[in-house]
């Protein structure tokens, strides 16, 4: 297990796009220390910000977090990264496989464009978790994102594939969803599913509903039971939500209208 121990407060945002177990496996500690991670003209390196211990393994632990740690685990393709603390924006952006865990909270755009693997945020996630960044066609794109605390606004905005689990979510959850599944054990904020085309939102409650979502009864769906089983395998609290009767709303009728929102009846 390789470790990066944060030396102290970061003087600027840093970009950890290229800091993965695979990238570090072929480097000596001195070579790794020279990797540029800063985003200003001061040329901040990995060694400036972290004490580095490498053993060539496929697991990396970042001890100490900061809301200025951007793109942690972005493009991760194998192995695991664990951050003991907070991270900044775009956690696991474009990640393809592996395991990414943050014990603190994440900034905005967590798991944006992630196509595979599992990303776990044990604290809260900022706005647009699993959502698309500027000009991107899709947000979460196949990976699994687990947020144990609260997610901010626009959870899963323009999400295309994969699954998001969260404790609660802000306004506009599942907005402009292309497809995929979001399960929130607590409540969603106002206007969930704005502009969603397809996809499934399941939540313990919700704020103001859009006038373009219509109730379609309390169907007993095999899909929900299968989903509950897969959630149990993930050890998720959200599985309990699926045990009872669920009321289904269909929308967003402003667009394709093939999305659905389930809440306990």
């Amino acid at each position: 297990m390789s470790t990066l121990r944060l030396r102290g407060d970061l003087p600027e945002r840093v970009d950890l796009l290229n800091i993965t177990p695979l990238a570090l496996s072929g480097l000596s500690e001195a070579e790794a220390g020279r990797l540029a991670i800063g985003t200003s003209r001061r040329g901040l390196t990995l060694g400036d910000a972290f004490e580095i211990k490498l053993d060539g393994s496929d697991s990396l632990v970042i001890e100490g977090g900061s809301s200025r740690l951007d793109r942690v685990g972005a493009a991760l393709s194998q192995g695991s990264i664990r951050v003991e603390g907070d991270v900044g924006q775009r956690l696991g952006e474009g990640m393809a496989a592996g395991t990414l865990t943050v014990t603190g909270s994440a900034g905005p755009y967590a798991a944006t464009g992630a196509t595979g693997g599992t990303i776990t945020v044990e604290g809260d996630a900022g706005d647009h978790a699993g959502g698309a960044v500027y000009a991107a066609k899709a947000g979460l794109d196949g990976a699994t994102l687990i947020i144990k605390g609260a997610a901010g606004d626009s959870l899963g905005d323009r999400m295309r594939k994969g699954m998001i689990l969260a404790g609660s979510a802000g306004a506009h959850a599942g907005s402009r969803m292309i497809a995929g599944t979001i399960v929130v054990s607590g409540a969603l904020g106002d206007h969930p599913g704005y502009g969603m085309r397809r996809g499934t939102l399941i939540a313990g409650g919700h704020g103001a509903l859009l006038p373009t979502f219509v109730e379609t009864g309390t169907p007993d769906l095999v899909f929900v039971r299968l989903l509950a089983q897969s959630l149990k395998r993930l050890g998720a609290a959200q599985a309990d939500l699926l045990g009872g009767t669920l009321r289904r709303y269909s929308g967003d009728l402003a667009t394709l209208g093939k999305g659905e929102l389930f809440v306990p009846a």
Partner: protein
Amino acid sequence: MAAWVKGGAADVDAAVEAAVDLLAASRVPVLAGLSAEVSALRAAYRLAETLGASLDPVSGPSLYAELGALSVGGAMTTTRAETVGRADVVLILGNRPWDGDLIPEIAAATPSRGRAAGAERSLLSLGGPQNGATRHVAYAAEAGGLAVSLGHLRAFAKGHLAGEAAYADLARRLFAAQYGVVVYDPEEVGERGVEMLQGLIRDLNESTRFFALALADPFQGRAAVQLSAWTTGQAPRVGFGRYQPEHDPWRFDSARQIASGEADAALWLASLPAPRPDWLGRLPTVAIVGEGSPEAAGETAEIVITVGVPGQSVGGALWNERRGVIAYTEPKAATDAQTAAGVLARIRDRLIEKGVSC
């Protein structure tokens, strides 16, 4: 021409030197405001490239409401002149379009060219102030705001909702247009709402002609978008910290950068009026402001340099909303005031002389 350093009157040379020292010492400088003529915007982008700074126009929220939707789904747009000349149905969204002279101008004319020439012009409003001075058919907005209302309207337009609701009637009127235009302010409608509106316009274009006329922000944001595009290939919120222009609307949102303590120095460029940010007196800042403006005073910022106001005391290329282009504007009363571009170029030259350049 006036300048102040730490509240005391100074000559411009001394203020430029102080500005160079302030910016050269900073780790994460921000160039904000950018309410200025095109030559000053160009000088600001060059300075940012030299300094490794990021840029953020004061019109950012308005610009990104439009650009966010445009970057994903495109847009069908028209101009003010085409609207006045061709539109037989004009839908006015929200309150802000009613503030200027556009709506009275549209209301005073009828279509004179194109397929609707000679037809009556019908004005419709959604979520507007119900202005009694201009004859129009008013529809109230949903409680959730304009974006929700647009989604509701689009559901009727698509035929996914039916009935005798007010929005069903509005949708019928839109489809009856021969050349329809929706007038709106992007910031008021919001990015999600603009995207929904463009979807509605695409739906209407299945059977008729319909376009969007987005109002420009009043702070030269449209000019900044064009200049940033031809200079960096990106939208305006770019940073040069890593030499290449990086575009990131969240990271380079100057209000966020300053509130979070990331930015340690700023340059506020407002040769034209712009809303004064609350951080101006707190963060070490170089303020380049129009002469005679309320900000042209020593207490505005650590360093204040006044410059000619484009269109007033100096000439300059400015966004012309009526024509939808950048156009040169003659000064009303030309003076020998220094230009913002000149001051920014002097700061950049001194930074390069001091070896700060990349």
